[in-house]
């Protein structure tokens, strides 16, 4: 079945630096990905999404890059702030309506003041 996974479980960055969180996927037919942020004790929150007809999408301080050739996507956070400390998941919506969202292993981002 499909799998979505992250390369590193933890990441520590200095406040103000840029953060890059990576994610690999295995299903070459995947055409839509979502990044979620989960703060401690809270539900995952949507950050940004990208479809396979794009290789880059920008939001407020966040950019997602998609490399379909190597089945890899990354989340870049510019000027990381303490409030960015959280666990980040990449997720793949189901290929069939109603099927599960596949979550990759989360990366815990810690911002050092």
């Amino acid at each position: 079945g499909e799998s979505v996974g992250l390369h590193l479980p933890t990441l520590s960055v200095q406040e103000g630096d840029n953060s890059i969180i990576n994610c690999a996927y295995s299903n070459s037919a995947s055409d839509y990905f979502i990044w979620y942020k989960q703060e401690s004790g809270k539900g995952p929150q949507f950050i940004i999404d990208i479809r396979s007809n794009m290789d880059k999408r920008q939001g407020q301080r966040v950019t997602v890059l998609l490399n379909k050739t190597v089945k890899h996507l990354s989340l870049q956070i510019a000027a990381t702030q303490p409030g960015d400390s959280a666990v980040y998941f990449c997720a793949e919506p189901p290929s069939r309506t109603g099927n599960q969202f596949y979550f990759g292993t989360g990366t815990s981002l810690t911002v050092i003041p």
Partner: protein
Amino acid sequence: AAGVIQSPRHLIKEKRETATLKCYPIPRHDTVYWYQQGPGQDPQFLISFYEKMQSDKGSIPDRFSAQQFSDYHSELNMSSLELGDSALYFCASSPTGTTGMNTEAFFGQGTRLTVV
């Protein structure tokens, strides 16, 4: 904007007891997902419903059951609770997009279940 509502937010039960978790999806969302997340772990998919029918099933124990009602709210029933059932239980809802596929899932704040 309306979000996914879960109740209760916190629940403490003893071993072998029964618990019922409720989820109220965002209006006009036709799909509901249940996930279980242990401390420091990734969300584990339990079960999903689309248009009130079970759609997909993950690692849900036989002691658990769920259903989606006519108003699209969903309930997760957990019986013979074990210590290992202590976790955050998230519900998410998703609309069906113009392509006929689910788009992003919106998560509730979760129910923290503690089994003692």
